[in-house]
């Protein structure tokens, strides 16, 4: 890393039992004016984070920014509207008498029925700029538990950008409720035909002026996403691929299982050299962030004398580890690297009728990205 210090090193990540202890301690430090940003959805984990936060009390404002996804009439997710409604009722109950709930809708599509375009990422990148009184808050908490990647990537990116451009002292926290059992039971229903670069993270990667400069793709892999990977590959058309496998992970064989699942894709179609594979802890996004930053800097050192290179990061993995991809891309982009985030979206989701049996496995994590703990 010679001379290139990393912004989130050291870092603040608390999960499991530590999550509650941290909330208790942090909220007891003094008055905290908190804006809690969460997505309205059917995911049973939607309110877990805010419930915990409110449970630990503390002084100061507790406002909520509820992001509603306008998915259009045809989304298969509508079949779960009753669940989303129950989640909303619970949120109102939790927030009752504690603060205001502001709603912002995010348009997911534009265009007509057949030739509609996905614009969720673009819309989400503009949400924070609509909050006029943002400076009244000491803390922004973004809970990504019920948000798709296409929303939380630009949303967090725009929060960081806002804080950095204004040299603000706002503390930005991310909350994720992890539960592999529930994740496995929420299944993509129809994958978009085309991957895209997340709004705010395309970095001119598609510019003709940089055509011909080698492109390195660093995908964080998770299970059951071969179609997504194929389509991101088509978008990126990389010259070199460095897949990231989760290891260590809760299931010690997960890395092997993923390789087995994608062997044809990785070794036959993409012809990846096994030595290019990177390993990163499943439950520590900051490790993924560090691994990606290191890989990028090593490639730059090697290829800069030959005209440089471009990087594309993507995460078809758990939400927690995907945040590592976001952090690395954000930081490296600010440092002037040619780096982008590629993503592809499902057109809807199907899920098992009753997931209450698995809710005991919910595990809350929080990452602090800016503010007092880094000052």
């Amino acid at each position, binding site marked *: 890393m010679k001379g290139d210090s990393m912004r989130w090193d050291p870092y603040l990540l608390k999960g499991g039992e530590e999550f509650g202890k941290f909330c208790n301690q942090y909220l007891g430090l003094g008055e905290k004016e908190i804006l809690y940003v969460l997505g309205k959805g059917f995911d049973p984990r939607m309110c877990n984070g805010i419930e915990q936060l409110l449970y630990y009390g503390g002084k100061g404002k507790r406002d909520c920014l509820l992001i509603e996804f306008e998915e259009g009439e045809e989304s298969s997710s509508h079949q779960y509207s009753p669940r989303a409604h129950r989640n909303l009722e619970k949120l109102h109950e939790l927030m009752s008498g504690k603060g205001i709930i502001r709603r912002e809708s995010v348009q997911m599509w534009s265009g007509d029925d057949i030739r509609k375009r996905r614009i969720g990422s673009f819309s989400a990148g503009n949400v924070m*700029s609509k909050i006029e009184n943002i400076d009244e808050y000491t803390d922004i908490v973004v809970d990504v538990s019920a948000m798709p990647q296409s929303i939380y990537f630009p949303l967090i990116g725009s929060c960081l950008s806002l804080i950095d451009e204004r040299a603000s002292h706002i503390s930005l926290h991310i909350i994720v409720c992890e539960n592999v059992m529930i994740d496995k039971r929420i299944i993509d229903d129809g994958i978009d035909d085309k991957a895209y670069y997340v709004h705010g993270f395309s970095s001119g990667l598609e510019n003709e002026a940089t055509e011909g400069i080698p492109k390195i793709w660093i995908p964080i892999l998770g299970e059951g996403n071969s179609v997504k990977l194929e389509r991101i590959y088509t978008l990126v058309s990389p010259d070199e691929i460095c897949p990231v496998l989760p290891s260590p992970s809760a299931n010690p064989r997960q890395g092997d299982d993923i390789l087995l699942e994608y062997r044809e894709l990785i070794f036959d179609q993409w012809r990846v050299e096994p030595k290019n594979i990177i390993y990163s802890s499943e439950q520590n996004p900051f490790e993924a962030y560090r691994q990606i930053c290191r890989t990028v800097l090593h490639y730059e050192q090697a290829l800069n004398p030959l005209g440089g290179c471009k990087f594309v990061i993507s995460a078809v993995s758990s939400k927690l580890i995907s945040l590592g991809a976001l952090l690395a891309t954000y930081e490296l982009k600010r440092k002037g690297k040619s780096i982008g985030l590629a993503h592809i979206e499902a057109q809807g989701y199907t899920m098992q009728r009753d997931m209450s049996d698995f809710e005991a496995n919910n595990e809350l994590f929080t990452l602090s990205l800016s503010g007092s703990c880094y000052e």
Partner: protein
Amino acid sequence: MREPRNPFRMRSSEHIDSDSTFIRLFCPEGLDLLPQNKLWERVQIIRSAPGGGKTTLLRAFTPNVLNTLYESQSNEDYKMLFNKMKQLDVITEDGPNLLGIVLSCSRNYATLEDLDCNPVQKERLLYALLNARIILATLRNVLILKKMNYPNDLHRITFEINIDAFPADIETPCTGRQLYEWARSVEKSVSDIMDRFGPIERKPIQGHDTLFSLEMITPDHISIDGNPLKCRVLIMFDDVHQLSLNQRRKLIQTVIEARPVVSVWLAERLEALAPDELLASGVIAGREYERPINMEEYWRNVHNKRFEKAMIDIADRRARSARDIPIVSFDACLQESLDGAKWNQVFQQTIDTCEKRIMDKKGNSKKYDDWIRSKEIEEGTLRQQAIGWRTLEILIERDLNKSQLSFDFDNILSLDELEHRDNSSAQAAAELYLAEEFNIPYYYGISRVTSIASYNIEQFLDFSGELFEEIIASTLLKRQQSLDPSRQEAIQKKVAQQRWDDIIRRIPNGRGVQNFLLAIKDLANEEWDKGTASYGGGGGITGIGITMVDRDKMVKSDSNYQHAMYKNLNTILSLCISNHLLEVTLGLKQGGKSWMILYLNRWLCLQFGLPLQYGGWKSIKPKELINWVDKGYRLSDKNGGSLFDEG
């Protein structure tokens, strides 16, 4: 990256890194679909379903490929491609004679539509981005064509431009370097506007009024080291379907109206077309542009054997490129015969069973005695005899049905009559009935593998790639290299099942699409189970027919009521056609009417256990199709079809 273990897995051409590999794998027959007449003088639109080979075709005209081909002209493997390129005047004895520039529209153009600014500003930004990228791509490709270093040799290019629309912020004549810097800054400023968080800044948006770049990149305007660029220029816009509706319309209109001196090709997927265009196959042509090329349609219209030959060529080229095993011919690895000892016992059993069933059917009647006797003395392999007996059973079934209508039960049928009725359609159906009833493989051999591809190259590679995987494994395990028919069929069924499962993941409203296809399957099975195999082609239904009058009603529904009624049906049909699940044949004349036939893609025939031949279809009213979309096919409902409108 390493050499491929299974070269069939290298799908789209942009993923084949080296140009020599590309040429080695490129099938020259693919060039035949280009019109021989006025190829370079008119705007050419090229369309296909995903995987049809558009990008591969365009890449064949790029400078790197042409240079590599020219340098390898003495190589026997490339001779045919070289000669075809010579015929097209793309390569001469002196070298490449074409500056081919591919510009992908899959880049971020559509994002411009979402910016918070007025339509005029969006249009100016679109033109600015296109102009910048066309100029940058031209500069890069000029240097590649002339084997110079990009971007170091940009100063050796000179542009002498004298056009009104050229922006005032760059002086001409200028060097390639100056033009590069200018175009790069234009491209960057537009990209930055698109990629920033929050609303765009309220300062005046720069941009361009027109697509002037098409006018400026003519050979007359470009010189290298003082020498004019003496070659034809071809701009190839790829993935035009990725533009927004407005942008696509604007680009096509601008290109056509500009009547550029340079040649322009526009390649897009069928999904670019609106439902009414799709159901009309987009067949509009004009003075300024050639009739669009539909790649699948081209292969369908030329003789079937030509597609098969081209696919065998593609397969052999890929098989020869495999890293671990020496295979010269792919089709030689697919066993074609069921005449071995292993199957004789099965065929003997089928003959006995068919004969017994025929005897049961005819009862005491002597009507078919001559026919039966002819089968008893028929020579040939046991397989041929089995097909003969099963064909006879079909013919008797047909005749018995007919007799019940005409009350003609006793006239003895002659051998001439048998010969007249014993056509290829009945024989083909007999083979499939036998396969179903006695668990004999049917979907095997190179001809059927190419049929299953339904004139789509990527689809062919999908199925053949899985077969090749097994061939590699067999070779490495030192087993027999060729695959027996049962194994071929099992592998292909597995691929079909994967594709079927993938519909939900890959296609919008995938479940609706599946339900509609299942309705066609139910209709086909209902007819097939009658045992008469009385439809064209392989005897069974593999498609549906809609009269052109009904089709017009569907696509040109004027009233809101009609529009709402057909909306879901048109959406499902559009998805099926653009994703190459249904193949359209327009204007077929039959029974005094003109028809639009929608055939199942042949891999769906494999999936549903239907014959692979085209020709068997049944007419369905749009009202019934709407029911299919909502509720699926109902076996008991006979309202949809009519007795006479059948192919």
